[in-house]
Structures are given as C-alpha cells and as structure tokens.
C-alpha cells in the first residue's frame, strides 16, 4: 500500500507515495480515516513528496480528509507536492480549500 504514517513530534505525517488515482483512493481513504480517528496528534500532514501521479480523484480524497480531520478537531495540512501534482491541485482550486506547509525533515 502506498501509505506510510509516522508520528513526528506533534504531527501525524502521512506519506502518500505512488499513484494517487481513483483506484488507490479507495484504500487510502479507509486507512487515513482510521489513522485520523485514532491519533493524539495536534496536526495531520499529508506529505505528497512521493506522489508521482494524481488526477481529480486526489482532490476529492484530500478535501474529504480535511473534513474528517476538522470533525475530529485537528487541522490538516498538505506538504511537498511535486510541481506537477501542485499544478493539478491548483487547477481544482486547491489554494482556496487547502493549507500548504513546508515541512522540516525530522
């Protein structure tokens, strides 16, 4: 599965690697929701540095997790998308709905 989750200080960092298409969102959605529901972290960070491909399904997945995290009282941030992935998220109006952060390597 293209997902690795680490607690780094106060952050729950979720590394989404590989191809973020509709097929992969089906399992990612479940695993991310489980991790968010069970975390003690203060922030959720979706690290997209290893995401090699994405399409419109990615935006649905990310915005859905923003809502799930918000309902759990935790803010969600997106970090390190490639220029290509960022371009697609921006096309979908991401800067209006998402908060991007620079993450320091732990």
């Amino acid at each position: 599965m293209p997902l690795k989750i680490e607690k780094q200080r106060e952050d729950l960092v979720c590394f989404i690697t590989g191809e973020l298409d509709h097929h992969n969102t089906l399992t990612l959605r479940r695993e991310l929701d489980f991790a968010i529901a069970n975390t003690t972290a203060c922030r959720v960070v979706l690290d997209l540095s290893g995401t090699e491909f994405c399409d419109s399904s990615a935006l649905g997945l990310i915005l859905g997790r923003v809502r799930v995290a918000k309902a759990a009282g935790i803010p969600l941030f997106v970090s390190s998308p490639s220029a290509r992935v960022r371009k697609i998220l921006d096309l979908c109006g991401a800067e209006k709905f998402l908060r991007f952060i620079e993450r320091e390597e732990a």
Partner: protein
Amino acid sequence: MRRNVKNSLSAVFSAQSENESLARVMAAGFLLPHPVTAEELADIKTALSEAVTNALVHGYREMEGGRVKVDFCLFSDGRVRITVTDHGHGIEDVERAREPFFTTDRAHERGGMGFSIMETFMDRVRVKSVLGRSTRVVLEKRLSLWK
C-alpha cells in the same frame, strides 16, 4: 493535409479500478517510441485517467460486468487521438457535465473537475453520450516535437 494513421492500438478491459493504471501504462507504451515530451505524456496520462475513471464511476457506477474500450491512434501529422467508450448510464446534459465543479456524485467525494482537467491538458475534447446507453470521450493532442 490528409492524415494517415501511423499507428493504432485498441483495448477492451473490464470496468475495474485497477485498470486505470493499466490504461495509463498503455498510453506510455504507445507514445514512448515517438517524440513525446515528458510533460505531454503526463498531460495525456492525466486526461486519459479522468476519462477512464468517469467510465467506471459514472458510466458503470462501480458495478462489475461492464467493459471499457480505449482506442489510441497516432496520425502521420503528429496528432494523438484517444477514444474512451463505455456502455453505461450515459450523460443527461453533456454541456452541463463539462462545467467546472459540476458533479452528480458528491456522495463519493467527487469535485466535478475531471472534464476541466481533460480540457486543460488536451487540445480538444469531444463528448458524445446517449442517456441509458453509452458515452464516448475523444481526446486529441498534437505532439510538439513531431517533424
């Protein structure tokens, strides 16, 4: 100028989400022997992924048993044409469906940006749909390095 077909490839696969990546790999395999830039290939793979995903999630509403056909065609003037056909539910109002943020599937966290992405990344996108019968999406792009 008359366009001659330089190469073509047709594939029919079951309406299963794992085949989204298969379709993208086919696009890469079909185009890589030719002068295609990395960006053009990424554009084409993204647009194709949108059309195939739509066939699965809207055309067949994620029910098994359906089939999706993808036809790749490369013309002698460097134009690539990819046709994605499903025999699913069809689109009631194509013009409306193509508008940004229009979706009939908010329940599954869809944002309604698939057609906009196809239009951004391809030179031309045509959609023909018969409600209750079929949908065909034709994606076209000219390879810039073609001689």
